[in-house]
């Protein structure tokens, strides 16, 4: 699960000379929120986001409609983009959780993926959410069980063994500590092609653990 497997290769890109009117239209038409600006050999020069296109009224010399129009037509992507040295980028071989951490810490929604300064792809929060959905089995139907286990070594093995004893396979599995009780750990398991009642019957027998939520979805 590395960036290179989940990024969008060959993203839509702009030249620095593109006018911002054009950039606005281009992003709207293609339904994208981030537009890397590249020079020769796809070298990253900057990044245009929806925010970059918001022109501060203070920058305008006057509110005369003709002057605004004139001002806007002369503005190019180069003038409004976040410059390359301020753009936070990521390498292809980074893990997706590291990528997520970078996004969370910096509060940004998109990272151009670069290799030696050259844009090779782009990864956005949507890409990561799509991956998260898959990791949790959100893209297939089946039985989703939440097990509350004590936060100690060996509990997950107990759960997995109980499932394996039934001859079932695990489609997806994820877990996290309870936000308000660090001694407890919630594990979410997605099982396919098994009846819900049997799952409850089998898993409620696991010692020390508790079935807190079962649903078919």
């Amino acid at each position, binding site marked *: 699960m590395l960036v290179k497997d*989940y990024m*969008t*290769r*060959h*993203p*839509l*890109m702009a*030249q620095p*000379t593109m006018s911002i009117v054009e950039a606005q239209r*281009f992003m709207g*038409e*293609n*339904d*994208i929120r981030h537009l890397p600006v*590249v*020079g*020769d*050999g*796809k*070298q990253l020069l900057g990044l245009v986001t929806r925010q970059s296109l918001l022109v501060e009224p203070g920058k305008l010399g006057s509110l005369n409609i003709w002057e605004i129009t004139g001002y806007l037509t002369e503005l190019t992507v180069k003038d409004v983009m976040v410059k390359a040295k301020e753009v936070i980028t990521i390498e292809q071989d980074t893990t997706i959780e590291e990528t997520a951490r970078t996004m969370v810490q910096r509060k940004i929604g998109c990272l151009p993926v670069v290799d*030696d300064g*050259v844009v*090779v792809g782009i990864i956005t929060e*949507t*890409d990561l959410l*799509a*991956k998260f*959905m*898959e990791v949790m089995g*959100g*893209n*297939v*139907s089946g039985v989703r069980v939440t097990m509350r286990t004590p936060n100690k070594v060996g509990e997950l093995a107990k759960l997995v063994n109980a499932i394996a004893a039934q001859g079932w396979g695990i489609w997806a599995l994820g877990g996290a500590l309870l936000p308000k009780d660090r001694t407890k750990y919630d594990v979410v398991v997605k099982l396919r*092609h098994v*009846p819900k009642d049997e799952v409850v019957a089998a898993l409620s027998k696991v010692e020390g653990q508790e079935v807190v939520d079962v649903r*078919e*979805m």
Partner: protein
Amino acid sequence: MSAQLEWITEADHRIKTPVLQVEDLAISYETRKGDVPAVRDVSFDIMRGEAHGIVGESGCGKSTVAFGIVNFLGRNGRIVDGHILFQGQDLVGQAPEELRRIRGDRIAMVYQDPMQALNPSMRLGDQMSEVLIVHRDMEKAAAEEKCVDMLKRVYMADPANVMRRYPHQISGGQQQRVVIAMALLNDPALLIMDEPTTALDVTVEAAVLDLIAELQRVFDTAIMYISHNLGVVARVSTKVGVMYAGEIVERATVREVYLHPFHPYTQGLMRCVPRLGMDKRSSFLYPIPGRVPSPANLPPGCIFEPRCDYARERCRLKKPELRQMEPGHLARCHFAEEVAQMGWEPPEEMLADLATPLEYDREAEPILSISHAKTYYEAPSKQLIGGEKLYVKAVDDVSITVQKGETLGVVGESGCGKSTLVKTIIGMERPSGGEFEFMGVDVSTPVSQRDLSIIQELQMVFQNTDSTLNPSFTVGAQIGRPLRRFNAVPKEQIRGEVVRLLGMMKLGERYYDRLPRQLSGGEKQRVGIARAIAARPELVLCDEPVSSLDVSVQAAVLNLLMEIQAELGTTLIFIAHDLSVVRFFCDHIAVMYLGQIVEFGPSEAIYAPPYHPYTEALLSAVPIPDPSVEQKHIRLSGNVPSALNPPSGCRFRTRCPRLLGEICETEAPPCQHASDEHRIHCHIPMEELRKMEVVITVGD
């Protein structure tokens, strides 16, 4: 259990903008006689990671579209209408500097002839790394490292060594790999491939096609794949557009186009190609009558109308639009629904032309028998003085017999000695050993020492018609020459006889005074055939006579050869690399590898187990224009070894996927008989060979 959730794949949230979107594109070439509209009203789109095929006969504008996208139209070509949106940006009307940058960085192109794409005077490593040094300002060492990586990705053996070589020092298949690797260095979003495998052998072609499919997955590159070969397009593409005379006449997924074609032209194309498994006794090839109209002189209504069997009044008057027949299936025909419903019956005049293939007498004395034939070429010794003489063993110990009136097919990769064998029979090469007997006469002598009557009985049809017809003599003079030389008819009747031959070739008297340059490829080949059969030879040797022709012309030429054979009882030796054509056309087939025959037998026996492992690999590599056919996946590794120093024991052992072990290395394989006529040279016991799975299975 709850209802199935919709399966959301990771691609669903990605950008929906096509990588390439061509809208109403029209390209014209300026000539002295005014603008020639080479491409008109072409629209298609290619999504990311998708391979889109463009098929059509030569001269129908496939390459012009590709050149339009990369702006290689030349000085007199220009885009007169339409848009080419590449990743959402219109390339038409952009400043040249912007275009250069977008195209250089994000679009790459691979051409048909790899030798012409590579600079012969530069080492491969230098020309590859140049791409990165120039486009990306990379340091030389880093660039070279990246090139080696890329060569590894295209499965080039020993990449570091290849980097130091010159283009002529590697084989055609390897050259094409280098070109593909070079195209991928810049990680293009769109890769345009213009007949990239046409110049390659089937086995190499299969490997290159596998490679293209893999790269498309790994790099998420959109591919526009141009080819005249329906089978190749069926293997690589997801969608396909059929082009005719500068327009797209049908566009849909590969399966739809091949199995349920709507347009009469697409249907016609399908009837031109022999399906593997068909033979001349059970089925016919139906060529499309007429030829592609010149773009300067298009019919007013539907462009296909003059050649269409279903043409009506409306087709002559009104140009049809590209219409949606079914979701995602477009066709440009007024009556497409009806055409698809109606079964197709060949018109009567065409049926009258189709000859019943000759039934030859299987018991008769063979007309040609060759035993232990050897043709060696002397190679310069590596030592300056003395040293052993080295020989390129182009044909080494080949024995075949040909019955009068039959057709013998010879297949094998390039460099296996097919052409040398034929040239030795006809006397253009002096044999180094063996016995050659033709109609009871010894023909191991070169042509200059042969009796005129023998020369008359042995004639040849060549592959490249441009280099075999004298450009400064008229068609009539060239066909008349053998008549004059062999005194076949009295002098005053020569013209009459030539006209009769032209008629037989379906050319007509008006061709008598034409020069070769005034003929199309198919017509030139007909003249070549007429010249070969003028003196009524007993045996005609055909060296790839249809390989360079379009499918509809190919069908016509094959039918013609069959007709001649039925009428004159001529015996044919037919060299080809297209296995479906050979299967269709020939009675017996010899499979050659490195100067030797590895399998020989009746054609239906060659295509079913038991196989020689080499035949099995060849069959698995043929591109088949039928998505319902399943093929076993066998790929040969490496190249044909040098005939200068062939492997010991079995010559195929270095590439054999069914290698037994030491015995293959030490002993020459024995000749095993599967039936009276069917022999296989292999160490694997016949019982094992019989148990092999069928390579090609026709689906539902």
